[in-house]
Structure formats: structure tokens, C-alpha cells
């Protein structure tokens, strides 16, 4: 097992290199001088511009970090490979650069924003696990009943409904209309996580965005759960369990569920990874101060250090989550025991 984990972590290296190369290439291909982006509307004094170019490794510098000039007195552009080298070296030192627009270290931006994304993802995944697995189970156990039809129908609708539109509808009903109907007595907060007075109130802010974020994947989770459980209930070992004298609750909860959960756990695990990568649509609709919204802002503003830093962070998170998902298989399915091939 330990060997397997180590192997998987070593596999991170090529993925990491690949991602950084692509990111670096993309930001270099996109037209536009980074120094102009940093400067924004203002015009820079030549000395300042020179200094900035040197600091951003755009021109060759000497040991003191001063620009080197050729015989004509011009600066020498740094090669792309060397630029990539500086970028990686900074990255490994935990330096993601500085935002062009915000003039603060990228790492600080994400330190500030990431907790909101994580908490939102956590609430959403709890909804997905409870509602998705629960609805899927009810639907499978009470097959062809009213509840089954309800679940199948509502999951179809949720899958077809764009998340941002669902978010807007929720805001309209639970934020605006409910407030009107109850005379302002009860309503759901519909934007941002700030401005909360109490702990409870701050958690209330998570409900609508989390439902929006979880909606589509909850529907998928319910569908996977339903079909897996139905398939498992047809297995021979289920017949064995019934023939042993177990009641239907024991048969379903003990013998069928664990087998049926394996693909569902895969799906939810991967989904959690993508939620942690920030939900651009949900965060935008709810004006949520998470990383999805921040990356979206950075892309539109061509704030490359933020884009690169954010994507790198997201890649690392997704890699780690997928490793955790793979390890969790081993606990659900004894046929998967990484590393030891003891079979006969």
C-alpha cells in the first residue's frame, strides 16, 4: 500500500511538469506585453519599466539583478526556456508571483479565497452524498413506485437545468419572494459570505450556492446509485444472503450497498475534486469570494500570474483528491489491494 502511494506521488511529477509547460506556453502565446498589463493605463518611466522587465525575468540580468545590455545598448530578451526555469524555480520555492492588477502575492490571494471555495465544496458534497445516495437507494429499493418516478424525473430535470439558472431561480424564490411573503421575517441569504452577524447566519449563506453547486452532480450520483444498486441486487451473492435467512434490510444495507457504492464513491470523489477547483458559474452567480470567481476575474483581466498560480493549485488539489479516491477503493473492495498480488 505504502509503495503504491509512493508510486502514485512520483507519477505526480510528469503531470505537474506537463501542466506547467502548457500553462506557461499558453500565457506566452497570448499577445500582449506583461509590463503593459502591470502598468495598466499609466505610462511608466523607462527606468521603472527596465526594472520591472528585469524583475519579471523578461530580459537577461547579471548577478545583482541588473539588466545586461548588448553593444548597441539594448536589453537582451531572456530565452523562453530560461523564463520557464525561473517560473518553476519560483514555484518550487512557493512563490507564485504577484498579481498584475492587485499588486499582492498570488499566494496571499488564494490563501484568502480558498477557504470559501473549500467550505462551499464541503457543504455541497455533503448534500450530494446524503441526497444523491439516499434518493438513489430509495429509487432502487422502491423500483417503479411513485418515489422512483419522482427521483428519475427530478434527476432528469436537474441534469438538464444549467446550474447558473437554477442559482438565479433559487435566489428569486428563497431570497426575494420568500422575504416578501414572510414580510422580511424569513429568507435565505443569496450572495456573498461576508456581512454575517452570527456563526449560524454565516452558514446560512452556504445553503443556496451549495445546492446550486451540488445540483447536477447530485442528480448523477442518484442515478448511478440507483442503477448500481439494482444491478447488485440481481447478483448471485444476494440470493445467497436471502437464502441464509437475512431480512431485506440486512440484505440491502450489508450485502448490496457496499458493492453498489464503489462506482458512486469514484464519481463523488472526482466531483469533489472538481468542486475544489472552484465553481466559476456558481461563484459568479452568487458573487462568492472563492477561487473560481478569482480565476475567472484573472482570465478576463489577463492577470497571468493569478491564472497560472490558481490553475497550478487546482491541479495539485485534483491530483491529491484522486489519490485519496483510489486509496479509498481498497477499503471498499478487497479485490483491490494495491501492491500485493496474492491470488490463487
Amino acid at each position, binding site marked *: 500500500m505504502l509503495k503504491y502511494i509512493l508510486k502514485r506521488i512520483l507519477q505526480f511529477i510528469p503531470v505537474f511538469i506537463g501542466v506547467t509547460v502548457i500553462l506557461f506556453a499558453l500565457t506566452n502565446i497570448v499577445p500582449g506585453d506583461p509590463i503593459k498589463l502591470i502598468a495598466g493605463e499609466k505610462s511608466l518611466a523607462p527606468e521603472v519599466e527596465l526594472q520591472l522587465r528585469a524583475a519579471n525575468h523578461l530580459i537577461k540580468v547579471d548577478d545583482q539583478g541588473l539588466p545586461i545590455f548588448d553593444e548597441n545598448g539594448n536589453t537582451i530578451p531572456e530565452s523562453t526556456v530560461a523564463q520557464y526555469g525561473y517560473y518553476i524555480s519560483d514555484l518550487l520555492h512557493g512563490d507564485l508571483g504577484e498579481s498584475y492588477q492587485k499588486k499582492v502575492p498570488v499566494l496571499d490571494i488564494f490563501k484568502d479565497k480558498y477557504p470559501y471555495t473549500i467550505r462551499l465544496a464541503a457543504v455541497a458534497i455533503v448534500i450530494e452524498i446524503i441526497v444523491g445516495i439516499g434518493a438513489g437507494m430509495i429509487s432502487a429499493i422502491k423500483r417503479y413506485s411513485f418515489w422512483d418516478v419522482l427521483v428519475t424525473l427530478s434527476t432528469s430535470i436537474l441534469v438538464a437545468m444549467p446550474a447558473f439558472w437554477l442559482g438565479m431561480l433559487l435566489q428569486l424564490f428563497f431570497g426575494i419572494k420568500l422575504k416578501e411573503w414572510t414580510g422580511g421575517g424569513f429568507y435565505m441569504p443569496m450572495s456573498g459570505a461576508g456581512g454575517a452577524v452570527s456563526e449560524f447566519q454565516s452558514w446560512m449563506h452556504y445553503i443556496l450556492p451549495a445546492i446550486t453547486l451540488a445540483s447536477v452532480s447530485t442528480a448523477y450520483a442518484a442515478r448511478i446509485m440507483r442503477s448500481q444498486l439494482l444491478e447488485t441486487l440481481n*447478483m*448471485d*451473492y444476494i*440470493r*445467497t*444472503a*436471502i*437464502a*441464509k*435467512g*437475512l*431480512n431485506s434490510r*440486512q440484505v440491502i444495507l*450489508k*450485502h448490496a450497498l*457496499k*458493492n453498489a457504492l464503489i462506482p458512486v464513491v469514484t464519481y463523488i470523489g472526482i466531483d469533489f475534486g472538481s468542486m475544489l477547483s472552484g465553481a466559476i458559474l456558481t461563484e459568479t452567480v452568487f458573487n462568492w469570494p472563492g477561487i473560481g470567481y478569482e480565476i475567472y476575474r484573472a482570465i478576463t483581466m489577463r492577470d497571468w500570474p493569478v491564472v497560472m498560480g490558481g490553475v497550478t493549485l487546482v491541479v495539485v488539489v485534483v491530483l491529491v483528491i484522486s489519490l485519496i479516491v483510489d486509496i479509498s477503493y481498497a477499503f*471498499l*473492495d*478487497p*479485490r483491490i489491494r494495491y501492491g500485493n498480488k*496474492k*491470488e*490463487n
Partner: protein
Amino acid sequence: MALLKKGEKTAESQELGSAESYSGHLLEVDNLKMHFHTKDGIVKAVDGVSYTLDRGETLGIVGESGSGKSVTAMTIMGLIKMPPGKIEGGDVRYKGKSILNLPEEKMRKLRGNDIAMIFQDPMSSLNPVYKIGDQVGEGLRIHKGYSKKEAKEAAIKLLDLVGIPNPSVRVNEYPHQFSGGMRQRVMIAMALACNPDIIIADEPTTALDVTIQAQILELMVEMQEKNGNAIIMITHDLGVVANMADKIMVMYAGAPVEYGSAEEIFYESHHPYTWGLIQSIPEQKMDEKKRLTPIKGNPPSLVDVPKGCSFSPRCPYAQAVCFDKRPEALYVGEGHYCTCHFALDNDFANKFRPKSSRSGDTEFATGEQEHVEGRA
């Protein structure tokens, strides 16, 4: 068996009748009819099956695929989904009491505890995500109230009993770590766990190698001698029950065609279908190449069984009456009946009955090895 003192049963099973309260047979199946209502019509999977079973006895139920052997067993266990299944008549009595209409809760107390079942495919009949020990001991936990620890200890003893080496280690392993034969031993251990009165084995050796088949059959006989349970052995291979069954029922198209003691079926059979089955057992002659004699044709669709004798389209001796009239069960001897119009015609039987010995009269299927050596 050693794990449980004789007569140690739960209160619920005593309610169903202890040894004193019934005088007849352990299990009586009386004209049982199980039909399936499907889109294509009514499938008469079991259409009038009767037999009795006593303690320590082995009944072999033999027939082709789709002859209703398994459905009979599943009906007894209450494992048929209803609908589409529907009991159209008849009764199943365990210790003198009908169990067909028992409420599900009482039926559960019976399953695994009084009547246990061994299934055909040991590869898929064990739950892949639970330890062998949990699965073997599970019956004891639900029926006898064993603690987790007690159940595990009992499972180790059971695994040892069915000949699994190193049981205290194997008990913690998972099904995928066992070979097919070992898994079937596990299934047997599981069936034996609660010391049931009846073990129904549904083609327990079909999925196994020939050499392993013999071991499993031997094990079942050995366990029966130790525990005195009755066995219903369902198979499509007469050879399998040749040396172990006391009584044999030959089934065709959902109904018995011949029923009698093993001797009677093998040496004094009266039904052409039984003859066909006997002829299709490979003989163990080394020096002589002989073709097997198959029964030509296919079994009828159970939606549309022929009007007369269900075997008539395939029967080489069929007369006009066979296509017209459904034969009654005719007793050719005490407890030996045959559903053929010519069952009582001894000349007919003597003329066409194949001269056949039981397959592997010496011991179980050891012939396979000799056969290989003979060729070499």
C-alpha cells in the same frame, strides 16, 4: 454437528413443529405448481411435482436445463419473486406444516436455519467484499444469536470441517483468494452452519473441474453421515447422483416423468426419457471408442407444452396415443411411478431399456484419471 448440541433450535423453529409433533415425512412436496405469468404467456415452470424426503435421505432431481428442477427448489425456499411467479396449486409441508403461505418473517427463520441451500456457481455466490468468516458465521449470528467472536470461532471450525486447510488464517480472507473448489467448500460450510434439516444443493458441481466435483460430492456425503441432514441434489447429470442418491426424480418440462429409488431408476426404469439420460452417460471403456447417444431435439417451450405427452416429439417410441393424451403417473412398483402410456408394458421396457451400469460404480468419478492414463 459438533458445534451445536442436538436439538438446539431457537424458539421460533420449535413453533413450526419439533420432532415429536409430526409423524410423517420431513419434507413433503405435494403436486406443486409454480407458473410464471409473462408477456408471452404462462410459463408452467413447475407443473405438478410431488415427492417426500426423510431425515438422512438423499433425493436426486435430474433433468435438462429448463425442466423446472431449480424452480422447485427455489419455491420451497420462498426465493421466487411473486409476481411474476404464482403458485397455482399444491403444497409444501415441512415437518407436517405447510410453508408455502408462511409469512415472510417466519419463512426467514426457516431459511438457512432449517433448510439451507448451496448454489451452482461458487464464483459468484459469495459476496466479494466480505471476509469468508463473516459470511460463514452470518447465519449463526442471525439465527442463533452468536456474538461476532463466537461466530468467527464457529466459522473456523466449519471451514476445518469441510476440509479447508489452515482455517484460522483463511477465515480472514476474501472470496477472490479462494479457488472454485474451495469456494464451494465454503458454500457447504455456510449451508451447514446452523445444522439444517435439509440441504438443497442446486447443481453444486456444475461449475467445477471433474476432479474437484468428486471431492465436493464426497464431502457432502461425509457431512450427511455426520449430521444426518437430508439432501436434495439437483443436477442435470445422472452420474452425479448415481452413488449418492437414495431416490431419484427425473423431471422433464416442469413435471416428473419417473420417480423411484436409485436402483429402480438405473436398472428398472420404464420411461424412454430416463433411458435417454442413462445412454448419455459416458461409459468408461478404455479399449473401445463409442459415440455417446444423445436425446435428439430440444425440450418444449414451457409456454406451449405439447398436448399429449410432453416428451412425445422427441420420443423414438411415440405412438398416436402419445401425441393425443397426457399420460398419468402409473405405479410400476412400490413408490416407483412413471408417466408413460407404456409404463406397465414390461415387454416394451425389457425390449428397449438400455443395458447400463451406473457411472463410476466403483467410486466417484475417479474414472477420469484412469481414462487419461488409458489413452497415454
